[in-house]
């Protein structure tokens, strides 16, 4: 499936069909990140149950140095 991930078109394998699976595919399960799917923040507790579907706009953000 094709999603818009952090502003880029990315082709995901079909088994990457939940937010949890998406994070695992980038090995981000231990990292401090926040996920937004189609403009809605995905609660940590719902990573497993939140689907990733063709055409989704997904943002994965984190904290960086800033003033």
């Amino acid at each position, binding site marked *: 499936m094709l999603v818009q*991930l*952090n*502003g*880029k078109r*990315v082709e995901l394998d079909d088994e990457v069909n939940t937010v949890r699976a998406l994070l695992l595919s*980038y*090995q*981000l399960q231990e*990292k*401090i*990140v*926040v996920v*937004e799917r189609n403009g809605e*923040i995905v*609660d*940590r507790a719902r990573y497993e149950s939140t689907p990733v579907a063709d055409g989704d706009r997904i*943002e*994965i*953000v*984190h*904290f*960086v*140095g*800033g*003033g």
Partner: protein
Amino acid sequence: MMDTLKIGPYEFRSRLLLGTGKFPDLDTQSQAVAVSEAEILTFAVRRLNLENPHEPNFLERLDLKKFTLLPNTAGAYTAEEAVRIARLAKASGLCDMIKVEVIGDPKTLLPDPIGTLEASRILVEEGFIVLTYTNDDPILAKRLQEVGVHAVMPGASPIGSGQGILNEHNLRFIIEDAKVPVIVDAGIGSPADCAKAMELGADGVLLNTAVALADNPVLMAEAMKLAVEAGRKGFLAGRIPKKRYASASSPTEGMIE
């Protein structure tokens, strides 16, 4: 009694808030943060670089029990963008404080007063502890307090400019009328600027570039810490009024003739 900085439900011993951008490397940054004794550190919220998601990140080095994170909404040009960034920051589960920053112009990076007020109002309603970066405008500072912000953070001068306090007069007005802490944020260039802000009665100073881009960031971090402390003590001690003419320090009586 301990002289502490109270922001919303939180209490801090340090009155120096430190930004975490632009440091030359993570080791220097860790040392600078340690010697600054800052307890509040600002961060920005950005997309993870998925081409290199495991590059070293300063936040991951921190003992999060020792620091309070103050994410900012830097990059936002509208209230809506700021609110979105703030919600993302809070969803990390690491913090409920937010530095509201809504910029009006890329050249000066001066705050957009209308977007700043609107974003602050919404985020206070949503239960954030709101520290708002604002113009050095006493009336805007008042309006921000009316919508319930927990601290107002007037800029000394444009972000990263190092020009120090450009409008001491307005800063005094803001401090005189403030019901919440006033933290001078942005434009600090040197320890003298920190001391000045604190002597004027500011409750704290937030700075980043002045330390991160100093020739020796660690030494400058220490200098800023000492300057904030010196300025605070000077303020509490109550300075003498300025006079036009001299006033002898030594007795005029008992001169040898």
